[in-house]
């Protein structure tokens, strides 16, 4: 069973469209994340939710809106897609997001490759 799963794996769409990426984890973790990996492979955090509450919101355009219906799911909706949104988006989860030790180790999904034409 895949621990952190994302759908779809590939997403090709036109500029101006609205699209969603879904993420689910079956690890029983409390914290989930969205990362963006650009064409140069640079990875940067976008959002993080802990127990369905937003705890990290980096400098991301308002067109990106995460939603966490429950602890096991964190979806990413993108409005009015632009060429610069083309990237690989990774979902991750960890047991929690504070304190010390192994509970904050993050486990990643396989990624969603978004291509905006």
């Amino acid at each position, binding site marked *: 069973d895949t621990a952190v799963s994302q759908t779809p794996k590939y997403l090709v769409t036109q500029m101006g469209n609205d699209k969603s990426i879904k993420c689910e984890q079956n690890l029983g973790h409390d914290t989930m*994340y969205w990362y963006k990996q650009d064409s140069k492979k640079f990875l940067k*955090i976008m959002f993080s939710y802990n127990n369905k509450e937003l705890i*990290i919101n980096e400098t991301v355009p308002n067109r990106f809106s995460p939603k966490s219906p429950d602890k096991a799911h964190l979806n990413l909706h993108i409005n009015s897609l632009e060429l610069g949104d083309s990237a690989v988006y990774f979902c991750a989860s960890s047991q929690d997001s*504070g304190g*010390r*030790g*192994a509970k904050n*180790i993050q486990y990643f999904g396989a*990624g969603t490759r978004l291509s905006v034409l």
Partner: protein
Amino acid sequence: AQSVTQLDSQVPVFEEAPVELRCNYSSSVSVYLFWYVQYPNQGLQLLLKYLSGSTLVKGINGFEAEFNKSQTSFHLRKPSVHISDTAEYFCAVRVGLNTGFQKLVFGTGTRLLVSP
């Protein structure tokens, strides 16, 4: 701000040769350091981590890394690489936020290219 530097964007090496991928971090507080590997068209997989204790940490696939506080480094090593080790390797540091939560800050990655 805490950051991670991976000076080598690409490291070519022959099969069965040893390899070292360099990682330096900047931090004024306790650090938690990680190496992740990304095989072509796949997600990130945790290779190893340093949280506390012994400065030499062993990970999967025969990799190990040494935490050196005085040099602020966490270099990744393998004594003998295989073709299958060809991948992108990311060093990351866990950063504490004012909110009490934490996030990972990644280096720019090092592409390991193993040839026969």
